[in-house]
């Protein structure tokens, strides 16, 4: 009897926790406007619903794989693809964060750099790439 009670309690707690985390994740990604941005770029607003499902399935499937420690046993070369996709997503995340978006207009206006703004954007992009590579190739050994 007590174990059934415990199981029910665990299920309720798990479900509640999952609901909170899941809606939090979706809210976070929504706030950053990444899905609208992507569908704008590929001119595919009608697939918005499909993209939402891809987000949901991605979250659920990776959670399952992670929690159950299910290794897919694929060749290592596949991780290149995974890496590019993961990096692109993080890159969009980083670009969408307001720090980047707020700094540039101020630079353009205050420091008279409206003409150089694209050039400065490149600095940020190369900075991120270099920082990340430095992180994994060199910094990690120290």
């Amino acid at each position, binding site marked *: 009897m007590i174990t059934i009670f415990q199981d029910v309690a665990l299920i309720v707690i798990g479900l509640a926790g999952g609901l909170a985390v899941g809606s939090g994740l979706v809210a976070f990604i929504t706030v950053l*406007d*990444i899905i609208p*941005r992507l569908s*704008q*770029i590929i001119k595919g607003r009608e697939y918005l619903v499909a993209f939402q499902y891809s987000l949901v399935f991605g979250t659920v499937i990776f959670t399952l*794989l*992670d929690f159950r*420690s299910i290794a*897919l046993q*694929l*060749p*290592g*070369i*596949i*991780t*290149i*693809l*995974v890496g*590019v996709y*993961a*990096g*692109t997503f*993080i*890159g*969009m*995340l*980083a*670009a*969408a964060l307001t*720090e*980047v*978006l*707020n700094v540039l*207009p*101020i630079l353009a*206006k205050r*420091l*008279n*750099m*409206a*003409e*150089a703004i*694209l*050039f*400065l*954007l*490149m*600095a940020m*992009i190369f*900075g*991120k*790439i*270099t*920082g*990340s590579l*430095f*992180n*994994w*190739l060199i910094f*990690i050994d120290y």
Partner: protein
Amino acid sequence: MNSNIAYLSLREKQYFKPNSEITLGQIAQIIAPKKYEKSLHQLKIYQVLPQEHLVVIDFMKIISMIKNKFPDIEVYTIGNQEIILEIVNSPVPKKPNLLAVVFVWILLFIGSGLAIMNFHYDVSMLDVHQRLYYLVTGQEKAKPLLLQIPYSLGIGLGMILFFNHLFKKKINEEPSPLEVEMFLYQKNLDQYVLANENEDKKNKQNNRNEGQ
């Protein structure tokens, strides 16, 4: 029937040179009876002082000036209630200082590199990469570089995608978030100027009028 009606609509922000004389035709669109049209266009509204950067002119001032000169015109206003005049030396914006640009470039370069490393440690990205590598290949690896190098390049790709710029070339015609952000920033500045400068200028104007 009263046919002496003038319809006025203020333009958006306008740029002028220092010391220029501003006439109504330069800052507003005017629909008025033929006999008044030309003189309304040439009605002097404001004389820019040498040290001024921003001038706000509101409709009430314009109406009172028109009423002074042409008492029998009835003025109707459409659209914006005030206009911002920005006084710039030359119509082309100043060229940025190359040294300053280089300085800011390095600042942003190192800053964003540091920021991404901070982020990686914040979210334990290394653990996640090792875990992801294991989930895909079934092998444990302390340094899953096969995943991490493409990941690093992907970050750049993602940022370029987000900003819609492949260096100078645009991916499609819609404005990028950066352009929208610049526009919003400028709009906020203008709104601030309208809210504050207006009061300032009114006081200054009064002082000036008293001095004359």
